[in-house]
């Protein structure tokens, strides 16, 4: 026969017929104002895709045989046509996983969801305790998320996702997150904090320390058999054995983002003109953007390692996350800012006072829900017994 097949990463250079995973932000509206929101959400954009345009997009997904779409936002469930669009997608052979803060997960909704194999739910949670979570996601967000998890569990929905962005303040809570997931029959998901959207402004204070990063890797290696990561820790492969997943940047190759106004970006963490491939409202719709955009063709070409090529870890880490580099002002052909060998720290020091690219566009609320990050004390140990220890209740 022929020679051995190429590694997957090299085969993507010819492009896939359709993205494997596609993130679709349905709206910029959100009831919360999480400090690290990757899409800077809060207020609906007046130009958001109409119901008919969303249906047409789903028709395209069907033609392209997209296996499933990850619907997020903002908070997607606040769109009045949300449940209709989910039904429409499933009826058109497109699976759905939607990402939510839990605000609209009623018992009736949970019952309907529990009955469908083709709809999955992901609840966002960034603290195993109310204090840690609400400091980042806002007052009452913990209660909302837990209530949604309990509601799904009570309705018999097994295996929904509890998705966590690992930060300096929750990195010590991984065991507790795992217990929470078990308690509600959910699957834990741990993901990397990227300096995207509002996250850019708080990245330096929220990102795990180097020691914590190592501990997260170790925890995943030992306890992570049933823990999902969205392949977001491939930059840690230099520590040793790679974690499960493709272990490569998927932007423009296997994934992309469609935003609420139809803009197509390489990745949800790279919402910026530099990574804008086109718009679904254009001629040829989404399919043409996916298949023919110049940006994606460039991203699909095999990358040389650039400054990383001579590093022994490069084969494993592939230079890390493009979005993390971009929004910290680092060159894309150099180390990830959190490079396990420390090359990222050195690179960050070199770019020093230069202002990195600003994430755009900004749909943040003008009067955001109060969060306490930046004004709070460090996590209070007493919260192990009293979830509200050290936490000043605020309205809003």
């Amino acid at each position: 026969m022929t020679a051995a097949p190429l590694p997957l990463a090299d085969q993507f250079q010819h492009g896939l017929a359709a993205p494997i995973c596609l993130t679709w932000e349905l709206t910029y509206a959100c009831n919360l104002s999480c400090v690290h929101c990757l899409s800077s959400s809060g207020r609906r954009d007046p130009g958001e895709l109409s119901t008919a345009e969303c249906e047409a997009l789903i028709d395209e997904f069907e033609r392209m045989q997209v296996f499933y779409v990850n619907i997020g936002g903002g908070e997607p469930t606040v769109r009045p046509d949300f449940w209709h669009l989910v039904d429409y997608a499933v009826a058109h052979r497109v699976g759905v996983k939607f990402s939510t803060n839990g605000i609209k997960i009623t018992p009736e909704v949970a019952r309907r969801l529990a009955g469908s194999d083709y709809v999955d739910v992901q609840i966002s949670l960034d603290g195993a305790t109310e204090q840690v979570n609400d400091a980042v996601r806002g007052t009452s967000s913990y209660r909302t998320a837990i209530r949604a998890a309990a509601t799904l569990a009570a309705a018999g929905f097994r295996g929904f996702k509890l998705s966590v962005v690992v930060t300096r303040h929750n990195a010590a809570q991984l065991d507790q997150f795992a217990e929470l997931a078990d308690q509600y029959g959910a699957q834990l998901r741990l993901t990397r904090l990227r300096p995207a959207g509002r996250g850019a402004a708080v990245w330096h204070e929220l990102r795990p320390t180097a020691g914590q990063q190592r501990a997260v890797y170790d925890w995943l290696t030992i306890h992570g058999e049933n823990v999902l990561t969205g392949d977001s820790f491939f930059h840690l492969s230099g520590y040793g054995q790679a974690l499960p997943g493709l272990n490569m940047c998927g932007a423009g190759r296997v994934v992309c983002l469609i935003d609420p106004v139809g803009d197509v970006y390489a990745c949800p963490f790279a919402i910026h003109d530099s990574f804008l491939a086109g718009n679904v409202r254009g001629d040829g719709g989404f399919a043409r953007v996916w298949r023919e955009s110049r940006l994606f063709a460039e991203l699909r070409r095999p990358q040389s390692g650039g400054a990383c090529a001579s590093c022994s870890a490069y084969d494993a880490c592939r230079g890390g996350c493009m979005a993390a580099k971009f929004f910290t002002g680092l060159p894309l052909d150099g180390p990830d800012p959190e490079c396990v060998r420390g090359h990222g720290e050195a690179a960050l020091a070199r770019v020093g006072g230069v202002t990195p690219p600003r994430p755009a566009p900004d749909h943040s609320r003008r009067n955001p829900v109060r969060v306490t990050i930046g004004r709070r004390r460090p996590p209070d140990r007493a919260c192990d017994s009293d979830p509200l220890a050290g936490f000043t209740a605020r309205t809003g």
Partner: protein
Amino acid sequence: MRPESFGALLYHYGTRRLSFLKDPTVLTVVRSLADHPTARSACESAGVTARALPAYERALATLARSAMIRERGAP
């Protein structure tokens, strides 16, 4: 199952597993399984050499283990 330039992608909604068929011949074999009495004859008919057969056997076993394909007559 979605054909691709390198072979094909298979997705199982129940297990949420994704299989990459990294060779177009594997895709041909998988597609023709229903028309052949045995996996071996499907492989031979697709032009798989005797030397390559073990690799194809392993590939089909992987797919069967993850319920992407199943034995005729199995529940």
